[in-house]
């Protein structure tokens, strides 16, 4: 067990933290949905048509390029709708639950890889390079599991895990068979899971210390030609549970946080739950428009109350769209309310780690990169972030490769994007870079 100290990064202290310990009763929604965009790298081809019955854990669709990769239904019920967007792209697959509680029963003696693929849990894992759902033909060099989420307002994964922690040893056992290398488990300082056969590393430091990719970069970085898998303990526990009980359990604990939530709290729910039922009566009632985010404020997806709890997240954040409209000469402001991690506003007097209520405003216009070192201080990896971003923008494949594009995912750049004075959309740039790179290499 090693202790790894990360210095770079930043812990934002946002308003709307969960104060109470208890978890509210299970929310049962009238509809559940799977959003294909959450499973980067998979092009959905439907297996179920609207009106057909589906059991929890039964495939809704598979990948067009690799039939073995399936995405399964979180609940048993009827496929209500396949929502399509532009050019018939599938935006969501909606399921109406019949509350029978009967999930598909898998044969746990089957080949572990087949079982993972069939159960849909494979699709919950990510691989580096490219930050996509792992391809089936490559065995990963190592597998990295993170036991904590360090993003602003993120839930304690210990809390979300609850009793399911007991399935982790089984999960590590199963995952060990998938790799010739090691299974690494990255734990925070205050929560060590040591009863598995995984190699445990304790990470101390600000966000993004909890990102599995950041942990990988500081334990054993991904080199060209190598593949590693990343996942969190929640997915790992589901894998363990599947191999112990034969059932996929998509139930989880969701953290409802942010300044737009009247009483931030943990709620029991199931993956894909509709936000309407999750947020019913929980939003702050005022005249300010709210931004509902499935996930955290850095990497989450903008949603409406008509949206759903996205598969990778156990977290909903609600903030104000705009706290103060038409701010007069904001650039000259002396108000301590203008929050900045730099000491250019008077807010530093209040301390940079004081609780703040941030809105969704861009706070400026997009500019060329001017200040140096802004991205590097937010990325605890041995990577020259700014040079990598420039290589991606100019799509210089050789440079991207040399500067370490295989090691990164968009989420690693989220904090830099927050702090960026030039207001560039770094995560989008990295995502597009990875996609283009993958199209070029495969």
């Amino acid at each position, binding site marked *: 067990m090693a202790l790894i100290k990360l210095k770079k990064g930043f812990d934002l202290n946002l308003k709307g933290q969960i104060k109470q310990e208890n978890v509210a009763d299970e929310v049962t929604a009238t509809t559940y949905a799977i959003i294909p965009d959450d499973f980067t790298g998979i092009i959905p081809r439907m297996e179920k048509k609207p009106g057909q019955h589906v059991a929890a854990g039964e495939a809704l669709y598979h990948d067009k390029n690799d039939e073995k990769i399936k995405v399964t239904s979180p609940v048993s019920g009827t496929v209500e709708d396949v929502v399509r967007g532009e050019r018939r792209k599938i935006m969501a697959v909606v399921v109406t639950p019949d509350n029978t509680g009967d999930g598909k029963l898998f044969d746990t003696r089957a080949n572990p890889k087949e079982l993972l693929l069939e159960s849909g849990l494979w699709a919950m894992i990510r691989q580096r390079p490219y930050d996509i759902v792992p391809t089936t033909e490559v065995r990963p060099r190592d597998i990295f599991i993170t036991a904590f989420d360090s993003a602003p307002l993120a839930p304690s994964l210990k809390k979300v895990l609850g009793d399911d922690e007991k399935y982790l040893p089984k999960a590590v056992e199963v995952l060990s068979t998938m790799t010739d290398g090691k299974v690494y488990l990255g734990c925070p300082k205050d929560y060590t899971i040591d009863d598995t056969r995984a190699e445990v590393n304790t990470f101390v430091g600000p966000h993004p210390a909890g990102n599995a990719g950041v942990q990988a970069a500081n334990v054993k970085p991904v080199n060209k030609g190598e593949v590693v898998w990343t996942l969190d303990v929640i997915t790992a526990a589901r894998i363990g549970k599947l191999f112990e009980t034969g059932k996929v359990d998509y139930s989880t604990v969701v953290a409802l946080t942010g300044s737009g939530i009247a009483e931030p709290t943990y709620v029991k729910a199931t993956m894909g739950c509709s936000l309407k039922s999750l947020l019913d009566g929980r939003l702050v009632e005022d005249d300010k428009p709210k931004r509902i985010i499935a996930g955290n404020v850095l990497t989450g997806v903008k949603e409406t109350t008509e949206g759903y709890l996205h598969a990778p997240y156990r977290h909903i954040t609600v903030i104000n769209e705009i706290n103060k409209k038409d701010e007069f000469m904001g650039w000259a402001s002396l108000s301590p309310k203008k929050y900045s991690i730099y000491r250019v506003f008077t807010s530093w007097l209040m301390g940079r780690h004081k609780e703040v209520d941030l809105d969704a*405003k861009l706070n400026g216009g997009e500019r060329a990169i001017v200040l140096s070192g802004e991205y590097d201080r937010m990325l605890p990896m041995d990577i020259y972030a700014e040079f990598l971003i420039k290589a991606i923008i100019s799509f210089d494949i050789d440079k991207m490769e040399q500067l370490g594009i295989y090691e990164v995912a968009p989420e690693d750049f989220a904090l830099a994007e927050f702090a960026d004075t030039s207001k560039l959309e770094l995560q989008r740039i990295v995502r597009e870079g990875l996609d283009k790179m993958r199209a070029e290499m495969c």
Partner: protein
Amino acid sequence: MKSLRKFMDKIKPHFQEGGKLAKLESVYDGMETFLFTPNTTSRSGVHIHDSNDMKRTMITVVVALLPCLLFAMYNTGFQHFKAIGIDASFWQMFLFGLLAMLPVIVVSYVVGLGIEFIGAQIHHKEIQEGFLVTGILIPLIVPINTPLWMTAVATAFAVIFAKEIFGGTGMNIFNVALITRAFLFFAYPSEMSGDKAFVKLDSAFGYGGGNVVDGFSGATPLGEVATNFDNFSTSTMDAFIGLIPGSPGETSMIAILIGASILLFTGIASWRVMLSVFAGGLAMGALAHSLATPTYPASMLDPLAQLCFGGFAFAAVFMATDPVTGARTKIGQYIYGFLIGVFAILIRVYNGGYPEGAMLAVLLMNAFAPLIDYCVVQANINRRLKRAKAK
């Protein structure tokens, strides 16, 4: 504010495509974002953003330059009244300096921002804030007696050929303000050096003015060192306080240090660059001093004096730290800064043609900054390649 907002909303259609004033769209946009922080919210990616933007960053640098500017005004008046032998009060000196410098500031901003506005309109881009800083730097580094038309020509040259053709703010290779000065320096050498350049003797808008007293020399200390070392009498303390002839902004070490502390405290400027420029200057100054010879009179100055005289400190704090034209990697910044310090003193001491070397040192290193970064980044690349092979 509400009425102003209403007014801006009312005139907005005229500036949009198809409107009568569509050609001034960028100007309107610039004004609007200047008056009101845009209400745009994030579309993709992170949902929250730091309040710091380019406007605030640039304004912070301008604030850091204010002590230098105010002192420059006072010193311009001080030198003027000293030269004509009149006892003037603090406010009289300041007023004279204000009147003398105001036209330069106006010319610099009008010419520079004018070109930026036109450029932004041609490219249909938002107006960038870079010139806010350049525009205040120019009056501080251009000798006070430079004719305004020269300043205008030089500013236009610098903004167009050192910045706009490279793609505007953030893309330039050379520091725009220094290009302005370098242009003046090489195009009009007679107006830019010697005893006549640095002390304003005639009146400003009819204020002040008079006959020069006997024994007056308007030479800067470094000019005196180069030409008349035997009678050199300015102490390092004088230079530290700054009541000496020189380019307006560069004379007072105190004002520069206040600016430096603002830049460092807010984290806008890189302390690595600043520190290593001074380290490089000290090192080269000490070396030159240890080999002091009357052939090169400037080598007789002790290292500390080297830092206080001339434009060295001003260049270290405000020019070398320009992130766009400087090295961008941490290790690169140490090398970049150190070499600026070394070259500044090297040129100053061993090149008789230029009594001051800070400007040329920064411009020279601007050219080398990408190379320094290239080497630093290449080391990272090699490390990655080695790691891949070692597996």
